[in-house]
């Protein structure tokens, strides 16, 4: 091939691959959402996946939520003191957690704990022909493997986010009230005055969308995992990296939509 055209060929092939992957992911989500609407509704599988994605992540959320709130209070307190605004510690910690840190860190934790495991599990099912076996039984693999995870993600993420925020606010309280000079009334009174329902809704919308994103990407990567152990390992890595990046990118866009 003429070396002059080589960069165009490489760029073209990269772009084509990217568009194909994007199209594949879009179709995967569309088919999954389609099957989400139609019966049979596999409630037991959804509950099982809520246990896997949500309940088993609670401990991680308890630890990360409380320590995030504590470190946030510690950092912000000294900044606020410089401006003589240390009474605003409560609302600043709460708003940071409710609107931004809660949904994002929570989503990243779920990606690391449950998203990677989902991709590995579905990927192993793919390479050991278990997905083909479901298909051969005239059952719908999307209905059995993807839809319960999507629903579990949509249900679990907002609940985990709520845990994260509440624990973070109490973590901030422990540092602000327990170690610094902020009074308990000022801390919670500020939160009551400055945090409104719209802020809570913003966090809720974010965590709902992150729930879809994590389970969508994790299931897609597992469903189309390559051959052998290497294929599954590659799919798992891609799933975690892509989910983490998409969470942060999407966070920017959804924030700009919500604040406007």
């Amino acid at each position, binding site marked *: 091939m003429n070396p002059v055209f080589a960069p165009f060929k490489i760029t073209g092939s990269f772009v084509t691959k990217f568009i194909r992957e994007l199209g594949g992911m879009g179709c995967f989500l569309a088919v999954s959402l389609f099957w989400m609407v139609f019966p049979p509704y596999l409630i037991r599988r959804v509950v099982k996946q809520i246990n896997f994605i949500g309940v088993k992540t609670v401990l991680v959320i308890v630890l990360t939520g409380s320590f995030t709130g504590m470190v946030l209070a510690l950092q912000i307190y000294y900044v606020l003191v410089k401006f003589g605004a240390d009474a605003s510690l409560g609302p600043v910690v709460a708003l940071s957690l409710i609107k931004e840190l809660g949904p994002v860190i929570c989503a990243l934790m779920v990606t690391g704990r449950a998203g990677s495991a989902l991709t590995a599990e579905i990927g192993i099912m793919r390479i050991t*022909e*278990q997905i*083909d076996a479901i298909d*051969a*039984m*005239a*059952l719908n693999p999307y209905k*059995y493997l993807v839809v319960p995870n999507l629903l579990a993600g949509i249900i679990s993420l907002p609940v985990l986010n709520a845990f994260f925020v509440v624990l973070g606010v109490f973590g901030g309280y422990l540092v602000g009230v327990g170690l610094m000079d902020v009074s308990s009334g000022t801390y919670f009174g500020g939160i009551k005055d400055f945090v409104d329902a719209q802020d809570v809704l913003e966090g809720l919308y974010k965590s709902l969308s992150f729930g879809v994103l994590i389970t969508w990407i994790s299931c897609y990567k597992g469903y189309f995992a390559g051959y052998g152990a290497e294929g599954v390992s590659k799919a798992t890595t891609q799933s975690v990296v892509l989910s983490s990046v998409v969470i942060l990118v999407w966070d920017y866009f959804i924030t700009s939509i919500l604040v406007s």
Partner: protein
Amino acid sequence: MTMIEVVDLHKSFNNHEVLRGISLKVEKGQILALIGGSGNGKSVLLKHIIGLAKADRGNVLIDNQDINKLKGMSLKRLKERLGIVFQGGALFDSLTVFDNVAFPLREKTKMKYSQIHEIVMQELASVGLSGSENKYPAEISGGMKKRVALARCLVMKPEIILFDEPTTGLDPLIGKAIHKLIRSCQQRLNLTAIIVTHEIPAIFSVVDRVAMLYNGKIIAEGTPKDMEESSDPVIHQFIHGELSGPISTQ
């Protein structure tokens, strides 16, 4: 009555043509052995017959219905008449033997637990696996996995079963026991079956007909006796496992 008919089936992967116009017929109640070298497309052909893969060209007719042209409920109904035993068993590794066999009954029927329990235990007994119902796939041998896969297939009472190398990796005695089991199931349920296998000549005592796949085409089809007596150098070399001949062993 023809139960499975494959007509001029073509399939390529990444510009490599694996199936180059396969045509094949299997009559109702017959067992056909599909033989041929590794990588010749035997498993790919099975996946087309059961509807897990789409052909580039050609048709797969199951009881005169083209599986590639059916959609929705009619495809589902047709697939319910088929079963497949995968090479590795494809058992759900997070479920016990009992739950694996019960899986299609739980998901596809409205039977009560007691009925499901009775059918599963009966089927496990018929494949010689009574007492193993609480074990996980990782705790049982390769031969047992294939029996569980067969039992999982049989609970839905299919009319056609496809076996992808059911005895590969098993010792000769267990292999023979699996062959005997396939034959007895076929007689009990009047099944039509295709067995992809390399177990030559052991398989000849089990099957009614043999077809040989070579270079993406069926090059010969006949009774086991016809194949054994064939003067075709390719068939002769393959069946007798000779290193020299038209089939390259490189």
